[in-house]
């Protein structure tokens, strides 16, 4: 089975440009998470969805970041305008709960974003 798919794997852009990161969760999973990994802050949860609805976006800077999940098999994380401090690896993860005690999150390979 395919795991979580992220695209692109690498993105280099210039400050001020719009960046869109994409994620396809594992089929049947109803939770989707976006994380950011930097040297300074480590791994941080930005936002997560359950059944396409935003459950918690308290970790996401609202002024320039937006996350959407238009259907159960696709999500985007958009940064507009991008800034050099957004340079990081962005991970998408998916999971399902359905009567279980906890969500085991399955991570994608990440998108390495560099903003010049």
């Amino acid at each position, binding site marked *: 089975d395919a*795991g*979580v798919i992220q695209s692109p794997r690498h993105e280099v852009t210039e400050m001020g440009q719009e960046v869109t990161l994409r994620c396809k969760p594992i089929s049947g999973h109803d*939770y989707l*998470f976006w994380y950011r990994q930097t040297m300074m802050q*480590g*791994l*941080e*949860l930005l936002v*997560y969805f359950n059944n396409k609805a935003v*459950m*918690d976006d308290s970790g996401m800077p609202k002024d320039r970041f937006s996350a959407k999940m238009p259907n159960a098999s696709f999500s985007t994380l958009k940064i507009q305008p991008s800034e050099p401090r957004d340079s990081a690896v962005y*991970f998408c*993860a998916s*999971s399902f*709960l359905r009567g*279980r*005690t*906890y*969500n*085991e*999150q*399955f*991570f*994608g*390979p*990440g998108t390495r974003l560099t903003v010049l």
Partner: protein
Amino acid sequence: AQSVTQPDIHITVSEGASLELRCNYSYGATPYLFWYVQSPGQGLQLLLKYFSGDTLVQGIKGFEAEFKRSQSSFNLRKPSVHWSDAAEYFCAVGVGTGANNLFFGTGTRLTVIP
């Protein structure tokens, strides 16, 4: 507030030697605790988890971890390290419904020398 501390940034061990990676957490309630491994250029893979029951938990790849409430610790161990274990290891505490909100430590990079 919840937090996770991994005091060792980088550990080097010889292949075949034993390994212990330290993790301390801060959380007011019974924690959901996790260890993840990240190989270079890869996403995170779950090694093991604890949320109740036996305080010694077994995971994949021969890893185990012991939950010690009195010490707020969840240290990861492996009796004999293989070269393929070289990676970055993250301890995390999960909070909220289904432990959806994961708070990660800063990670420990493991180097294995022949």
